[in-house]
């Protein structure tokens, strides 16, 4: 059983605690947050595990009860915390984006390789149950050559005060790095080819990423972060030369009928995905192999996310080169 330290006990933490509690391969051992109330609250939710105020003191103390660190802090601290954990010989699972630049992410990857620890990045879309089935069909050859990937992901408006870190592109990386890196990783996963073109458009709380490939394949992904009410919305279509696969919530799949009055509730697909992600991380550590979402994957996604951000800023198309991109 891999023992985890959860660094960052903010809004996202309860979902991670719940997912870890369901895992057969890992368990939370320590909650870490500079806010003692937040850390204490998470610790209580996870069977009264211990909590501390900062990672440095935890690692300095030897902390033999921690095998790996989950980095769940604001984006601008991901790389530094990951590097500190790696330096202390801990495996790390980092929320996306791995860093606020591809270069910084590459440095984290280098250090993880040098220290021979496992580095995984939380590109959770790969673990969504529907997407897992799509990928399985693709790998089995049922879809033929992938030609078009289309996805829509709508989220409720970022919570928290307007001054929060998610509202500050300098701290979050902006929508391209904070959110679209998910879709970019998904495209790299499902269309096993580096794109040649990135064209991105943005409007308030909206982003659209359009990828072109030398093979003729194409991907277009829309993200909205400003839904005022209700659930999110997720839809994916992968069109191949022999068939197509669709994975979307549609609000009419995976329903749990509770009996009695006619009502139904969606199963929590994200919780299932986070648990699968934790399991993969823990098993990669146990088996001494790279996790299925590696540091290299994260660096590749960030390179394209940076090109997308440049495309938005310039209004031009980013033509990807071996080492970067050219706008035209």
């Amino acid at each position: 059983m891999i023992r985890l330290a959860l660094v960052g006990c903010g809004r996202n933490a309860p979902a991670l605690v719940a997912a870890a509690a369901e895992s057969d391969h890992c368990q939370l051992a320590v909650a870490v947050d500079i806010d003692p109330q937040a850390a204490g609250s998470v610790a209580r939710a996870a069977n009264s595990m211990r909590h501390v105020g900062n990672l440095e003191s935890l690692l300095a103390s030897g902390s033999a009860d921690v095998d790996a660190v989950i980095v769940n802090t604001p984006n601008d601290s991901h790389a530094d915390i990951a590097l500190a954990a790696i330096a202390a010989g801990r495996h790390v699972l980092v929320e996306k984006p791995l860093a606020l630049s591809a270069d910084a992410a590459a440095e984290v990857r280098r250090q993880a390789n040098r220290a021979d620890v496992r580095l995984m990045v939380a590109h959770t879309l790969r673990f969504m149950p529907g997407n897992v089935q799509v990928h399985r069909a693709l790998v089995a050859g049922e879809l033929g050559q992938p030609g078009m990937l289309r996805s829509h992901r709508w989220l409720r408006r970022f919570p928290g005060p307007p001054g929060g870190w998610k509202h500050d592109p300098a701290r979050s990386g902006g929508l391209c790095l904070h959110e679209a890196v998910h879709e970019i990783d998904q495209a790299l996963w499902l269309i096993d080819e580096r794109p040649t073109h990135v064209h991105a458009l943005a409007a308030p709380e909206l982003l659209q990423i359009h990828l072109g490939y030398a093979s003729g394949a194409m991907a277009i992904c829309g993200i909205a972060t400003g839904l005022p009410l209700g659930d999110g919305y997720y839809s994916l279509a992968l069109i191949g030369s022999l068939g197509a696969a669709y994975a979307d919530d549609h609000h009419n799949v995976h329903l749990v009928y509770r009996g009695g009055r006619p009502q139904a509730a969606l199963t929590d697909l994200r919780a299932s995905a986070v648990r699968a992600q934790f399991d993969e991380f823990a098993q990669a550590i146990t088996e001494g192999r790279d996790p299925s979402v590696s540091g290299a994957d994260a660096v590749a996604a960030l390179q394209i996310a940076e090109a997308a951000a440049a495309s938005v800023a310039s209004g031009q198309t980013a033509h990807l080169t071996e080492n970067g991109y050219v706008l035209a």
Partner: protein
Amino acid sequence: MSSPERYRVLALSAAKHDYVPLAFKDHPRFQVVGVSDEPSAAGWVHECNEQLAADLGVPYEPGVDEAIARHRPHVAVVSSEAARHAQLSVQAANTGLHVVQDKPMAPTVADCDAIVEAVERAGVRFLLWNRNTQPAIEEARRIVHAGEIGEPRAIHVDFFFCKDAGVLLNSDEPEEIADSWLSEGELTVEGIYPLAYMRHILGLDALRAFGRASAHFFRRHAERGVEDIATVSLEMERGVIGSLCSGRIGRPSHPNIGELRVHVIGSTGALVVAEPRPEVAVHTRGLAPDDDRNRRTDQETDRRQVDHFVTALDTGGDTLLTARHGRHIVATVRAALESARTGRSCEVSRPS
């Protein structure tokens, strides 16, 4: 001048589809008086025309000018091969006929400009056939225009038809149909529908397009260098973002007629239209490969489009999709395909 009790309709060619002229068949305000075409049309086109005439119970009379002189129609319904759309529509408009025309409007923007110029000079109404009278699309338009989702910020349309277009890429099998409109590009032909949805729901045009396109499925498309799938990013008026996925994705690729969805995101809400829903799907052992598995719950879409057209004729108002709208749609498709060729976003041309 008062409106006639019934507008006389002359069908000009049914090379591509018969559903446009057939939509006028039993309408109380229209009387289909004949089918005509150019005598020089291909043999298979004459065969299609004869079949349509038989279905309508009217004569087939090659020779367009002669048929117009004989029947004195008010309306020409043009459903020829796309390459002849402009010629027939301009000829009809120049004779003072209102025009209803099948998709695509024309292969080139210059042809579209010729149609716009002819219908505006003649002061006749022009309707480019579309799917905007789908109830869900009408409802989406109502919701947006009522402000129920705030200021529109984005519109995304997925338009995948699960149909085939001959044999698959890399197949050695011979084509069953040697040549037809199936040899035209998918975005080129079908792009009118999703782009017309955008126009109808938001009332906005595209300004720039970035496109990708490829022949992914069908040999005839690859051999002709035309697309069977395409993706388009659009910069639209008022800062709205648009996107479009279009494809003829093969019969096995969807359980319904295809993935036809519209997503509109506004400042205070969002809506999703899944066009095939609600659906009635009928699966039987005796189903032939080309039989429809799905029965539409709404059979009145074409009828409503004709109703709207007759209102435009009676009042002199705009049709659901005018020549100028159609011209802009073709210009948007051409910009997307040019972008796909060059790798750069392209401006959508405006009429001079």
